[in-house]
Structure formats: structure tokens, C-alpha cells
């Protein structure tokens, strides 16, 4: 006889809707929260994430800003230092480079440089990733740029539950948070409990448990990795898929626990491989768990090129299922 299961009410959401629910939730729960960015109001957001929020919350809290990335991020930092909880939106991470000075020289630095006096509770949302044929100035993955910098938390938010719950948690952080979202996957639907679960910002998430090899990834690429893991399973290889989620700080414990079990790891990311998150992950595993490893750690990243416009070249540049399977074969000594 099986125990009766309690039927939990669920809802089907696109990732886009999940991101928006996270924003609405934050705006409703805390009067200090406001949004500032380009075309987030009347237009509804470059990726329609903020559609309808202007009508619901008004122009004081949904602030359409001019095309001024430095002023948007810098003013968000100043407002955060003076009692507000701003969420600055930068359309794509390619544009975020315009504001990198404010992020690095101010947001990440002021608390330490002021001897602990001025913390900066700002959240900066931006997007990353290719796959929409928008060429080399709208497609890149700059998570590693930001994750390099002490003093900021960097989050990669690519699942529905995270999208719905991570923003509120990020706003509770007294220090700056840079949050990456992923346009390529925004139409993916998932069924979720109606009531959001709390999301832990500090830990990586195991998206697929497995025992033979650890696949470490983050962002939209995890869907490709999960596809590869499914194919590997058919071939008798049981892959564990870890979504890092937090790119700074990194959750070493989850990585090391997994590698202690699987003895093999491949890191897959959409950012360039050189000096990427994968390089850091591989270094940490090597430093802390070298003798657990049965093979050198594999790394797959974007081809070291500016992302091109034509579909076949874009696909050739990005991590694909076949390449992941081949990399796994190499660490399994099957290649």
C-alpha cells in the first residue's frame, strides 16, 4: 500500500515569466526596491521580462533610463548606499562593459576601501549568451569578467525555480550582486509549485545526479549538457550535472564531493575557455582533489573568436552535445 500523496498545486511558466515573477515579488515585498534601465517601462523590456510592470508599479519604481549604462549603474550604486534597494538592468552583458568601471571601481571596492563603512546593496541584472544570430556585440558571455572581482556576488540564473526565487535572495545580500539571465532559453516552459521555494545563493545545484563523471556547467549551456547526459546514459555512462549558479563565490564543496564520487570531470561553458570559469573550477579541483581524479579534467568553452552572425558558424563556436560526449569519452578513456 502506498502512502497517499498530497497533491501540490502547480503552474506552468516560461523562464521569462519566472524572471518577471521574481521582479514582481521583490517590488511587492519591499518599498525600497525599484528598477532602473533602458526600455524596461513603456517598451516592456528588451526581452519582455518587465512587460506590464510600469502599469502595475508606476514610473517612480519602474524607471526608464536613457542609454547611459554608466549613469544607470553608478546611480544605482549611489542609491543603494543611501537606503534604497535598486535593481539596475543592462540589456546585454556586451553593454555592461560600458559600466564596468562603476561595478569594479565603485560597487566592488567601496566597502573595503571605506574600512567597512559603505556597503552597496545593489543588484545588477544583465543577459548573456548566443544562439539568436545577433553577432559579436550582442552574444557574448562575460560572467568570468565579473566573477574575477572580489567584493561582488555573481549569479547565473537559468532555471525556472531559480529565476523566480533568486532575486529576492539577492536583494537580501548587503553587497553587490550581478545576476546573469539568458535570452536564448526564455521561452522554455516548466511546471512549478505555485508557491516559490527559497533559493540558496551559496550553493551549486545538482541538476542530474550520476556516478561516472561530473559535468560542471552554468547558464543556458546546462540544457545542452543535460541533453548530452541523457545521450551518455543511453551509452551506459551515468553523468552528474552540476549547475554552478553562484560563480562568485564558487561552491567548492559540491564540486569536490561530486568528484570524490565520480573521479572524472568535464567543465562546459559558453564563455571563452581561456581564463574562464572552467579554468578556475579545474584549478580548484586539481588543488583540492588531485588524487581523487582518474583523468585530467576536460574543458569545453566557446571557440576563441568573436561570435559570428551565420547560424552554422555560431553553432560551430558554441559547446554542442557531440563535443561534450567526445570530451566525456576522453576522460573515461574511451576516446
Amino acid at each position, binding site marked *: 500500500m502506498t502512502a497517499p500523496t498530497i497533491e501540490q498545486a502547480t503552474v506552468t511558466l516560461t523562464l521569462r515569466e519566472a524572471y518577471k515573477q521574481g521582479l514582481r515579488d521583490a517590488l511587492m515585498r519591499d518599498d525600497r526596491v525599484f528598477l532602473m534601465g533602458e526600455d524596461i517601462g513603456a517598451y516592456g523590456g528588451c526581452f519582455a521580462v518587465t512587460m506590464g510592470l510600469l502599469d502595475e508599479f508606476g514610473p517612480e519604481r519602474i524607471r526608464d533610463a536613457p542609454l547611459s549604462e*554608466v549613469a544607470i549603474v553608478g546611480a*544605482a*550604486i*549611489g*542609491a543603494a548606499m543611501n537606503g534604497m534597494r535598486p535593481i539596475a538592468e543592462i540589456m546585454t552583458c556586451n553593454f555592461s562593459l560600458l559600466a564596468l568601471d562603476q561595478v569594479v571601481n565603485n560597487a566592488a571596492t567601496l566597502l*573595503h*576601501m*571605506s574600512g*567597512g*563603512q559603505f556597503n552597496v546593496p545593489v543588484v545588477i541584472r544583465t543577459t548573456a549568451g548566443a544562439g539568436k544570430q545577433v553577432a559579436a556585440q550582442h552574444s557574448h558571455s562575460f560572467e568570468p569578467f565579473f566573477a574575477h572581482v572580489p567584493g561582488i556576488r555573481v549569479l547565473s540564473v537559468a532555471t525556472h525555480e531559480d529565476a523566480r526565487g533568486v532575486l529576492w535572495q539577492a536583494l537580501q545580500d548587503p553587497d553587490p550582486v550581478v545576476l546573469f539571465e539568458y535570452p536564448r532559453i526564455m521561452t522554455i516552459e516548466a511546471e512549478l509549485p505555485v508557491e516559490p521555494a527559497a533559493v540558496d545563493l551559496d550553493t551549486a545545484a545538482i541538476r542530474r545526479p550520476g556516478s561516472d563523471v561530473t559535468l560542471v556547467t552554468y547558464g543556458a549551456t546546462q540544457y545542452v549538457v543535460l541533453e548530452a547526459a541523457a545521450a551518455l546514459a543511453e551509452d551506459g555512462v551515468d553523468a552528474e550535472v552540476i549547475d554552478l549558479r553562484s560563480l562568485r563565490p564558487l561552491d567548492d564543496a559540491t564540486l569536490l564531493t561530486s568528484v570524490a564520487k565520480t573521479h572524472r570531470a568535464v567543465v562546459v561553458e559558453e564563455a571563452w575557455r581561456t581564463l574562464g570559469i572552467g579554468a578556475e573550477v579545474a584549478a580548484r579541483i586539481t588543488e583540492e582533489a588531485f588524487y581523487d581524479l582518474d583523468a585530467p579534467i576536460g574543458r569545453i568553452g566557446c571557440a576563441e573568436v568573436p561570435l559570428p552572425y551565420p547560424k552554422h558558424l555560431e553553432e560551430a563556436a558554441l559547446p554542442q552535445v557531440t563535443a561534450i560526449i567526445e570530451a566525456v569519452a576522453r576522460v573515461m578513456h574511451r576516446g
Partner: protein
Amino acid sequence: MSEPHATGSALLRPKDLDPDHGRHLLREMIRIRRFEERCVELYSGALIRGFLHLYIGEEAIATGVMATLRDDDAVVSTYREHGHAIAKGLGMGPIMAEMFGKVDGVSRGRGGSMHLFDAATRFYGGNGIVAGGIPLAVGVALADRMQGRDRITVCFFGEGAVDEGAFHESINLASLWDLPVLFACENNGYSMGMALERAEAQTDLALKASGYAVPSWHVDGMDVLAVEEGTRRAVTAIRGGGGPVFIEYETYRFRAHSMYDPDLYRDPAEVELWKQRDPIPQLTETLSDLGYLDADGLATIEAEVATEIDEAVAFAEASPLEPVEDLERFVTSEVTP
């Protein structure tokens, strides 16, 4: 070549001057001047290291501006900030300890000359990035406005910051949103070694700022009474909800850009010409002419300031260094506010 105004404008408004207030202004300028002169000595003695950007010659601006502010108004500054910090009311001892890199410094010794911070007096720091503090100031003002407070934010920057995109993005945003910011541009004629006319096609910076629909005017930055009067007009308008104001304070630094600068790009005759308009002797003469200050009175101020500086140096010398174990403290917050 940068030229000072020929008029002795300090004589224009003395009859309205309250004697105590006049002496206060003089004392503040002398405090800043003597503090920095002592810093130069201490730098030569290797007790202060790193960059040291002196404000000598520009003291009338910090002094005159602060005289128009309330204690709860905010200041965002630059790396040439000692004058702003002293005039805003940061203690001279903790400032000097900061110069020494000691733990009792205003920023625990971590920032040095360029990065003085003090939450208690709403001093949002010296910023080492030219124009880096300007967007931040706009945000501080935005937060006050959104929280229904009538505080204003004064953002100091040099004329070199007008070269930067951050200035233009920020003043436009402040104007668009009617934010309570005073854009206080200290035009000393040179961004490091670059003369204004070699850097800007339009050298009238108030005119440039007015292109953002921001009321903008020039003020003689060598005359503390003119600074106070010109700033008070702005502060009243801003606090009244009139949106931001831009003031171009025309001034000059008597010393080089920093202690590393051999000052090869300025004609010594030009420096001498501007020194004729030194704000401290100007105000001393005005107060003397009005019968508000005699030689003894001046000597008393100088002696009291010297004592204050001696005490600040002693405080700095006595302060311990921050323990090395604290190196990584405050990379992230230790408590959730």
C-alpha cells in the same frame, strides 16, 4: 594661458558679513592650507606615501560651499579631497591617520589620501577615477528624493571630469529626473598636465552644462565670499525642488598635480599671477579692513590651527596599523543591515 579675474571681488559684499562667520571662513581655509603644508613635510619624511594631490589655492571653494550646507547634506568628492573632508567636518586626527595608513584613519588606513570616507558626516568618499563619483552622487540624491527627504548632494569634480562620458550621462539623468544635486566643478585649468583649452572645444563649462537644461553659472573660486553667495543661491534652488544646478568655480592650484608632478607644463609667471589672488590673504585683508580681525586675532587662529594639526599628527603617529589578519575583512559585509 589661464588667467585670474582682475577684479578684487572680495571687497564687493563685506558689509553684510557677520564678523564671527567671516573669521570662521578664514579659520577653515587656514586649517585646510596648514594641514596640507604639514602633509607635504610628512611626505618628504616618508610618513605619507602614494599619491598626494594638494588643494592649496582652492580652499575658498570647499570652505564657501560647506558654509551653505546642512550637516545632513551629502558630499561626493575626488582624489583632491582633503579640503572637502576637513570643511565637511571630518576630524583632522582621523584624516591624518588615514594619510599615515593607520587603523584609526577615517577609512581604517585603507584608502589613503585619495579615499577618505565618513558615513557619519555623509562624506561619500574621494574617488580616484576621474568622474567616477558623479553617477554615484546622482544615485545618492535619487535615494533622498525617493525617500522624501529634502537633503541635497554636492558632487565635486575637476574640469577634467567634463571630458568624461560619465559626467554627461549623469548630469543629463539628474536634470531629466529633477534630482537635488549640486554639480560643483572646480576648474583649476589643468587636468593633470592638460590645459582646458587643449582638451575641450568649448571651454565655457557652465555653457556646456546648460545644454542639459541645468541652471549653470560661474563663480570666482578664489573669493570665499563669492563662493558662498553663488553656492547659497544654488543650494536654495535645489532644496526648493528646482532640480540640479551646475557651478563652475574658477580656481587654480598653486602646487603641482601631485607630489610626482614636476610641473613642466605651466608658466611660472602664470602661477605667480594666480597667487596674487590667494583666497586667504584676500579674506584676511577684508576682515582687517572691516575691523573684524587684527594681527593678534590672526596669530591666535594660526596658533590654534597649528595646535590642532600637531594633535592630528600625534594621533596619527599613536595609531596602530591595521593587523594583517584583517586584510580580507570588509570585502563583503560582516553583518546584514
